[in-house]
């Protein structure tokens, strides 16, 4: 069982990483002064637009890239150390593997690299294949797999050795809604087991469904790091969905109807909510739903929006 005593699983302090182009003699700063701490057992989302530096940070966590400045520690050890990698499971954005192997052989191969015993591999491989809905692929070469199946296999290999830390880089890319739900369920199951999950994604609905903490990265820098609870608490805006408008209701709502929207609802603050609802009902409007506004998307657009490249 995983030790759930307090302590940071991931510690990043002042991470900076640039890439030099030898011929062009140019330099691209992929990550600048990133600091963050991921506590044991938490599920942290690392979001940001393409080129924001998410994958670079993940590669630094795995020791595949060395920081130009700052330090990265996993379980108190230097990132990339054998000890740290032993306790980590990683799924890359696109799972690149050996197409000539079958799914079972692919998993057995990664199991051997993860220092698993043959007995443990023999038990874990069918278990993970079944968990990820890949049992029916028995004996099939991986090169014939669809993108979604490859993603599932990528997650299976990350989970194979029961790691204490899961680093998932865009795990739902290429998955259908069923697959996305499966990934979310697995993340929840792993969290219940005490596993720390570091999830890079820009599918915000997935992040909202599964994460405790969100870190927004833009152009290589952390622009927001906040717990999901706090974000939800701080959200002061409500959305009232109107099924049927009346002339009086529309008059009453007035400026509360957001400009540029589809006109199917009104927005108001917590303080005004009761009064607005009462006015709308009195004016004959039929209310569909009352909910807090989709804050993560707004926050994302506020902090990371408008930067198409990093």
């Amino acid at each position: 069982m995983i030790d759930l005593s307090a302590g940071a699983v991931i510690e990043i302090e002042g991470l900076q990483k640039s890439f030099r182009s030898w011929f062009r003699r140019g330099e691209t700063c992929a990550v600048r002064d990133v600091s963050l701490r991921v506590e044991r057992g938490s599920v942290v989302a690392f979001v940001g637009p393409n080129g924001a530096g998410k994958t670079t940070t993940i590669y630094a966590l795995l020791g595949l890239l060395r920081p130009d400045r700052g330090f990265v520690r996993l379980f108190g050890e230097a990132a990339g150390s054998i000890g740290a990698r032993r306790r980590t499971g990683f799924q890359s954005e696109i799972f690149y593997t050996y197409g000539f192997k079958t799914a079972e052989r692919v998993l057995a191969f990664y199991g051997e690299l993860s220092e698993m015993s043959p007995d443990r591999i023999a038990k874990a491989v069918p278990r993970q294949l079944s968990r990820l809905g890949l049992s029916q692929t028995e004996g099939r070469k991986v090169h014939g797999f669809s993108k979604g199946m490859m993603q599932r296999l990528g997650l299976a290999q990350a989970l194979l050795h029961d790691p204490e830390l899961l680093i998932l880089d865009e795990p739902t890319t290429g998955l259908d809604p069923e697959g996305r739900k499966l990934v979310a369920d697995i993340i929840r199951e792993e969290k219940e087991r005490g596993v720390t999950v570091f999830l890079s994604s820009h599918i915000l609905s997935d992040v909202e469904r599964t994460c405790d903490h969100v870190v927004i990265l833009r152009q290589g820098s952390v622009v927001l790091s906040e717990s999901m609870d706090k974000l939800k608490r701080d959200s002061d805006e409500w959305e009232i969905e109107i099924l049927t408008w009346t002339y009086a209701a529309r008059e009453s709502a007035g400026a509360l109807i957001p400009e540029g929207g589809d006109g199917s609802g009104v927005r108001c603050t917590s303080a005004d909510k009761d009064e607005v609802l009462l006015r709308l009902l009195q004016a004959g409007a039929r209310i569909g739903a009352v909910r807090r506004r989709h804050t993560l998307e707004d926050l994302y657009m506020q902090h990371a929006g408008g930067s198409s490249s990093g």
Partner: protein
Amino acid sequence: MARSLVQVRAIAVTAFQETLRRKVFYLVAILAIFIIAMVSSGRVLLQMATEAGEMDTAASVRSGMVQNILEIWQFAAIVLALFLGAVGVSSEITAKTIVNVLSRPVGRAVYLGGRWVGVVTFLWLFQLIGILVALVVARIFDVRFVSTLWLGFAKMLVDTVLLSGVSLGLSVFMPPVVAGAGAFLLQMTPGLVKDYLQHPFGVVRILALALYYLSPASMPSNLIQESFTTQLLHPNSSLYSQVLFENLLYSAAVFIAACAIFARREPRLR
């Protein structure tokens, strides 16, 4: 230690399977078979010589056929060794399969060792096929050879270890094409600089001497060719063994240096 060996084996098996699926292997093998088939047209000459009662000529044609098989096959093995060594790591970087391997508790030396073992095993099997065919042909045509042929076979195997090791080692810090060419040049260096060892200019002499000792040892004679003649130019087996041993050590030294460099390098994954 045992865990590392399991990892080396897993990586080696994968490298072997990968190599077996490389088009270049089939291209080189088919080309080698084609050239051997062309050279085997010497059978007509053999028949003519036998019918004319020219027994010496017939014997020389027969041994020439076996030599040709061995030399052509060895040339193919050398081309493959240079190529497979040079792309051993870079192909994994290009395919990005290296990410999922190095994110596991796998040491860089274990990874590099596994790739090398896989490539060398493949090359040795490839060479053994050629050797086996040559021995069968020698048996069929009753070709006589001396015991140094076995040392010649050992040299063939050591050469592929050396060339694949050097090109793999160089490929961790230079592009694969340059690594392959560099490994080939390095093996040719003793022959290229030999004439400059007695050069009147001291600087040239020192440079030639340095290059001579920095490059792998060269065999003083063609063991395959001379195994089919009655008289050896350098009938000193211990010297041949020493050259083979030195080249194995050279391969090991290059591998250790490559591991040290690879451990400090970032794979170019972007």
